């Protein structure tokens, strides 16, 4: 990016991007730890993540204010304007990811001690790894201003949907096998849904990175592999 005559403008834009990166780091760390709390069944860890959400919200608001001030003071144009707009949008998605991580932790508190077989959470853990990879790649793409990398993230969301569909069926099977599993599996199903939603937010971020770098939009409808909403309920035999 070319330097501006007012160097404070560059500093403003730089501080904004830096803030988004740090916010992303926080969202990543909250997600990682939420999953760890789920796998290890650790209420202490879950509570730590829940406490972090306030910090994430405060940081997001601070960044949004900074972005508004930048528009008011510098009246950015072209790529600068896109950088500010993208920052506002991306912080929103990251804040939502933090909320979803917090929700997983609340569910960990509810089901601690009730998960009988480790295989129940294994699938959810696998799903989370895919989503964390997406999140890391998209944040790297943001920092590097790399449209190609963002596009790759946008295209890979399909894998997450496919895995979510598979998990949905598996958990349903456990519920039918033994009604005592229903409570735990319902919570796990929501955890899986939350993680899948995080993946959607990561693709939103990817769209914004693409917009920021190229000015274009990723418009074409993505191939949807999540078919659970179309699925007929299996009848108990």
């Amino acid at each position: 990016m070319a330097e501006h005559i007012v160097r404070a403008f560059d500093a403003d834009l730089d501080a904004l991007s830096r803030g988004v990166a740090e916010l992303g780091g926080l969202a990543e760390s909250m997600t990682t730890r939420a999953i760890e709390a789920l796998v290890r069944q650790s209420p202490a860890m879950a509570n730590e993540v829940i406490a972090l959400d306030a910090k994430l919200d405060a940081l997001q608001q601070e960044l949004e204010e900074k972005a508004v001030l930048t528009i008011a003071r510098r009246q950015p144009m072209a790529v600068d304007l896109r950088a500010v707009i993208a920052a506002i949008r991306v912080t929103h998605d990251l804040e939502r990811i933090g909320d979803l991580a917090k929700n997983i932790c609340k569910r960990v508190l509810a089901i601690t001690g009730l998960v009988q077989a480790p295989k129940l959470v294994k699938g959810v853990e696998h799903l989370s790894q895919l989503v964390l990879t997406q999140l890391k790649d998209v944040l790297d793409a943001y920092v590097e201003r790399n449209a190609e990398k963002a596009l790759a993230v946008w295209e890979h969301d399909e894998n997450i949907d496919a895995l979510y569909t598979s998990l949905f069926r598996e958990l349903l099977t456990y519920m039918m096998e033994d009604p005592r599993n229903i409570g735990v599996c319902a919570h796990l199903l929501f955890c899986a849904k939350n993680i899948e939603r995080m993946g959607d937010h990561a693709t939103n971020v990817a769209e914004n990175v693409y917009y920021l770098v190229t000015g274009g939009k990723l418009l074409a409808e993505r191939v949807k592999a999540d078919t659970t909403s179309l699925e007929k309920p299996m009848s108990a035999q």
Partner: protein
Amino acid sequence: MVAATQQEAPAPPTRRWRQSAAVGALATTLLIICVLALIGSPVLLPALAGALVTVIAALSRPRAEHKVWAEISSQETVRAGIQAIVSGVADPVVVLDSHGNVTMFNAQAKAALPQLGIGRHLSFAVRSPEVVSAVERVLREGTVAEAEFHEKVPVERSFEVRATPVRFDAASAGPPSASLEIVMLFRDVTAARRLERMRVDFVANASHELRTPLASLYGFIETIEGPAKNDPAAQARFLAIMREQARRMSRLIDDLLSLSRIELKEHVQPTEEVRLDSVLSEVIDTLTPLSLECRTKIEIEGMNRTQVTGDRDELIRVFENLIENAVKYGQSGGRVDVMLVDGERAVSVTVRDYGPGIAPEHLPRLTERFYRVDVADSRQKGGTGLGLALVKHILNRHKARLVVRSELGAGASFEVMFAKPAINEPA
């Protein structure tokens, strides 16, 4: 940088001489103006004042400039020295200025944190909140701060980070905060953390998976000791089953051990060059007896000389697993294709069978440990449920990808893709 300093060293005396010549010229002009002023033209008074200022400035400049110049040159020598020390450290080192912007780093740091760039804030390369707050703490309090940061994807890594505030030019009389810098030392503790976790995982996995064959062994021993005590025909049959169970247990332990070993070094990329075609033909040779037994023909295609960066033994493991699976589970198709393609952006190996195929809901989960599409079928064919997990971890280490495509009734294909390094990528 050092070379540049030596070249410029003789410059100051010349410059000073030239400056004194200028001063002489100016003084002469001044003298003339003075004379003219004395003659009594008040219009010339402002010109006189201006000239005076110029002379004073000219007289004082050479000394000041020389001093600043010397300071810069000594600072640059110091910085070059520091840079040399930083690049000599075996662990990743990053130096930050008083705003947290990166001023120096070594090659190890760049390898661990690819987003590092001179003049950019550290947060662009390390987003971890622990590290961000450690840097803030050092800048605020001026004391050493320590943090630990973990990365879970794409391969797990852990670093211990130590941020130390330093002043490189302690002698300078400037405001102290201006010269404060931070040296960040990253220590890779991935191996140690892995080892801790591996023990826990191993015990958990092993105890869970070994219980079933152990229980059946126990049952047969009891039967041989009791009801079948005098029945040699039944004993022979039971002993055969027991041998099979024992073999399964030992295979399971082997697989668990190799999985742990690979996980331990997953974060270290292999460096040797391997001939992929020779790996494949070796694997196919060892699997020929099995393919004859299963009445499956292994067809090969595109076996030209192709090299990838990798670990030979591990790649043999990968293709052994994939081709063995194809022969075993796709034997109803009677044919397995192995294709090696040296493409523009990637080298790929596809193993395709024409068996019953895999239902779509299983596809994304095949590489999970102990995940089996059909538990009974897998056990009967001697599967441990770890084969594809092993493949995934080895490929992770090679930064290669596994793509599985399948449709029920139409067979399955497993494609391994090794990305070629981009040619015009900036180093």
